[in-house]
């Protein structure tokens, strides 16, 4: 097994991207994700890759569009306000069915907001972000090891389904160091017969374009895309289930919130409260099955979030509001403490008649 190294989450993303065969990175600096660009700036020239600091986020995402059109693995990264700027380009990527990896190391918002960790771009990420009917595959790492693993998975899924994969991280996971191993078996990128690589006078032109002025043609495109999304929902949805066998109080939390919640679940279990945790690893597609299964024992769900409550809507949808769903949160760059989550579990257990 490869030796474990201590690395920041942001650096682990960059290293994993290189391992996945990404040789083109375009970005524009913003806290708290700048280490990704710094790492790429150092490494890419040494391995024959391209690091380019664009003049803006909008320029960077359009460079991603260009490289992706040629069939190469490509990525960009930013933090919340920068992702808003990239959203137009992400919509165009979706309209052309181009694969790409986009990292959002979230910070508090709205507007310029702050630079401390947040999860308040959940709606933006899971509903597409830009205009039009589309989705991204949204992956939510909760450790530095997962920053690496999900980056590689993101490239694979993006190629497989010709979609943008987004790593939805946050300032904490990006900035923290943990041991990480880069012992990965890399699947080769699939053939991309659609890529614009020159016809060599041997085939018809490939055209990458999202403009369809005839409505029924555009409608058909959307139908086809949503058939693909249904497959993604069936095949890709993933969650970690922790102490869920008999859980009556079920925490839903992703990323850093799940780490905090796990401490609280353990504390509650020590007090005899049947608490458990569902940690969505894919936010879109949302791992509905794990939530439906939990309904067998659950008396209450608590969505723990670094936002004013966004994922809670998906928890309610997945559970069809069959049991109460409450919110335990901080916002604006603050993180709930394990004690806050524990108190929420205790209150819920009290109400549930424990």
């Amino acid at each position: 097994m490869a030796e474990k190294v201590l690395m920041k989450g942001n650096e682990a993303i960059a290293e994993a991207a290189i391992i996945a065969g990404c040789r083109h990175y375009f970005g524009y600096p913003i806290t708290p994700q700048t280490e990704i660009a710094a790492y790429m700036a150092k490494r890419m020239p040494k391995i024959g890759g391209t690091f380019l600091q664009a003049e803006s986020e909008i320029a960077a995402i359009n460079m991603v569009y260009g490289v992706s059109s040629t069939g190469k693995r490509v990525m960009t990264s930013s933090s919340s306000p920068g992702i808003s700027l990239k959203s137009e380009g992400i919509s165009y990527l979706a309209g052309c069915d181009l694969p790409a990896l986009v990292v959002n190391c979230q910070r508090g918002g709205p507007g310029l907001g702050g630079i401390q960790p947040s999860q308040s771009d959940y709606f933006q990420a899971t509903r597409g972000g830009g205009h039009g009917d589309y989705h991204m595959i949204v992956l939510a790492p909760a450790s530095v090891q997962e920053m690496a693993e999900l980056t590689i998975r993101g490239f694979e899924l993006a190629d497989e389904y010709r979609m943008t994969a987004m790593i939805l991280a946050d300032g904490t996971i990006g900035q923290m160091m943990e041991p990480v191993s880069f012992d990965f078996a890399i699947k080769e990128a699939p053939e991309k017969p659609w890529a614009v690589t020159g016809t060599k006078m041997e085939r018809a032109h490939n055209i990458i374009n999202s403009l369809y002025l005839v409505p029924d043609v555009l409608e058909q495109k959307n139908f086809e895309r949503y058939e693909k999304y249904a497959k993604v929902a069936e095949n890709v949805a993933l969650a970690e289930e922790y102490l869920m066998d008999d859980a009556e109080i079920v925490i839903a939390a992703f990323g850093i919130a799940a780490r905090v919640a796990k401490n609280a679940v353990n504390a509650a279990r020590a007090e005899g409260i049947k608490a458990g945790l569902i940690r969505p690893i894919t936010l879109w597609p949302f791992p509905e099955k794990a939530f439906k299964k939990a309904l067998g024992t659950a008396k209450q769900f608590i969505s723990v979030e670094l936002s004013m409550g966004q994922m809670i809507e998906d928890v309610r949808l997945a559970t069809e509001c069959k049991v109460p769903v409450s919110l335990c949160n901080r916002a604006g760059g603050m993180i709930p403490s394990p004690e806050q989550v524990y108190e929420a579990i205790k209150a819920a257990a009290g109400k549930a008649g424990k």
Partner: protein
Amino acid sequence: MTREMLFAGFGGQGLLFSGKVVAYKGLIEDKNVSWLPSYGPEMRGGTANCSVIVSDDPVGAPIISNPDILVAMNLPSLDKYESEVKKGGIIFVDSSLIERKVTRDDIDVYYIPATRLAEENGAPTLANMILVGKLLKVIGEYDEEHVQKALGKCISARHADLLSLNLKCMEIGRDYE
């Protein structure tokens, strides 16, 4: 066993680095570790800090509310975190920079004039490592080989000449009574 450690002081005192050495030593010993820095405006004056967790179990939240161990390298840090330290915990105070004493009596306190010792030994920027040396000694974790290895991981090849000076400062801390 889980140890939650908070290294706090001014930006530039090397607290993030000393936390990294402790974390790397944990990794070398096959422990679960996390290292979380403060980032942003507080790094420019005031209190910069980093939270290090070394544990036999998987690390949950990397954020520390109540540390077992506090290393304080300036007064604002001691003022801010003294009350947060767990009962029975330990505080290491750089007594060349912090004049006041710790007021709590339910914790162990070690006063080390680290900045003065560092200056006297020709390493004015390595007071942090003196404190780390003392910390590891006090908790019974000063393993010569692992300390050297951890330093080797944290100091880039370009600055390899600084390794022996760092080690020397850790030994000064280790041997300080």
